[in-house]
């Protein structure tokens, strides 16, 4: 059933050809494997008009893409750097109105992807009623629970991304991708029309034939392309492989506080390829 086999294992740039201008692109949160080397390559290519869906929140990846002018719409529960501070280019773009925002809440994004994964038109979710999120999301509807007690409940349309992009510890040459306990990536891959993965290393053999590895492996038929990208999540962390480079994030935040500083960051870390 391996199908294309080696054909899925390609260089980074051809892998990213699956992400076209204007695509709805879904990406995981910082804890689940952010494809940062791929993100820098997309910016070098000059990708435009993305509808970026963060699953469910984001930090550097979204801020970089927005600052580089690659994002038309962002659908997110939050873009921020936690205790390090606010996301400067995201905040500036929202204030200036140069990016359209679809504010969500974390479980709404998970639920809408799960609807897509099941082939359902919508998901329902508790809570949200009485929040101003509802007023800003005309695509979210309050419906009556068809079962007793017939109480109001929020219906969320399924999110069907064109492409999911993530970074994982390893893949085999057949295109099966091992993601460990980062189960969000399964939902992401199942819900999206296709997935592009970058990985730290290659696994010799077939991941699906090892009982302990198979259950944490996304089968190749969801994966359009895999590219090898050692330290491909840097400066974000990757599971137990490496920690977040907090000093770099602080440097980013200091530079990206201004438009000029952000351009300098791009020149130094994105356009030079030294970090990719």
């Amino acid at each position, binding site marked *: 059933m391996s199908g294309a086999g080696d054909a899925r294992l390609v260089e980074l740039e051809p892998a990213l050809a699956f992400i076209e201008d204007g695509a709805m692109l879904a990406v995981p949160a910082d804890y689940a494997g952010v494809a940062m080397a791929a993100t820098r390559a997309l910016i070098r290519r000059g990708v435009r008009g993305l509808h970026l869906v963060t699953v469910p929140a984001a930090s550097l990846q979204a801020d970089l893409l927005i600052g580089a002018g690659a994002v038309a719409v962002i659908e997110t529960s939050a873009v921020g750097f936690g205790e390090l501070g606010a996301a400067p280019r995201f905040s500036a773009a929202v204030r200036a109105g140069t990016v359209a925002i679809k504010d969500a*809440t974390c479980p709404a994004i*998970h639920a809408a992807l799960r609807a897509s994964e099941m082939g359902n038109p919508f998901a329902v979710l508790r809570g949200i009623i009485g*929040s101003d*999120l509802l007023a800003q999301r005309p695509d979210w509807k309050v419906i009556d629970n068809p079962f007793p007690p017939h109480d109001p409940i929020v219906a969320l349309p399924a999110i069907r991304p064109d492409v999911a992009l993530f970074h994982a510890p390893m893949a085999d040459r057949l295109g099966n991708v091992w993601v460990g306990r980062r189960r969000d990536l399964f939902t992401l891959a199942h819900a999206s029309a296709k997935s592009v993965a970058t990985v730290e290393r290659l696994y010799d053999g077939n991941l699906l034939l090892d009982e302990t590895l198979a259950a944490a492996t996304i089968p190749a038929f969801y994966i359009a392309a895999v590219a090898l990208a050692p330290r491909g999540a840097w400066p974000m962390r990757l599971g137990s492989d490496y920690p977040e480079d907090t000093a770099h994030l602080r440097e980013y935040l200091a530079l990206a506080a201004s438009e000029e500083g952000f351009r300098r960051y791009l020149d130094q870390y994105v356009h030079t390829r030294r970090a990719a």
Partner: protein
Amino acid sequence: MPPERDIRAEEVLIEVVRRLIAGARHVAVGANSPIPAAAGFLAQLLSGGTPLVSLQQSPEHNLWTDGGRELFDAAGQGRIDVFFFSGAEIDGAGNINLVAIGDYARPKVRFAGSYGSAYLYFTVPRIILFRTEHSRRTLVEKVSFISAPGTSPPGVWRRGGPIALVTPLCLFGFDKERARFRLDSVHPGHSIEEVRDNTGFAFDLPEQVPATALPDPAVLALLRQEVARELAKIYPNFAATVFGMER
């Protein structure tokens, strides 16, 4: 064991949170929350195991195996008893704002976003609000944007909501029937006047407002030793500042 030094403000807050989570089976703590995490560990040590404390950002301190969604699924089922939220703004009706100040479409200030608040505020029985800046800028009459509403009208399903607001000055309890905060205690070194001067919303003021209860010496010793050691693995800066742990 008597305390070797004066009690720090952070230690008072940890004791406040420890009392608020009494009896909980499962306390979940979001990122960057050393005080709630310390309170959870302390409660766990004192009771010999409960509550389960899940720290979202530390794989060594949670048991999740089903991705980011598992917290929300567990909360939806009623498996999470306590969660913590802050707000760029918190208003007198318990509404929190994590989104923006000013007009939503062209905000004056834009924050990260609502995270899981619009859902967990309904599904988790005890939400503890935590704000490290007690000012009229943060504790307001009415929030600019409601990320999650403090109360809901009858007929809307709701298991939980805010029960308290903890600040560096005081502890407010929340009366959900009246959608209003009540001053429950004032921390040592602060006064009711100071609370009133720095709070932008109206709140109930009982005739007697006690001083916030301090941890007893045995609890304090546990906090400064076992809890401090565990905390240092996750929040080295906080543990160094508050407990003098080596980095």
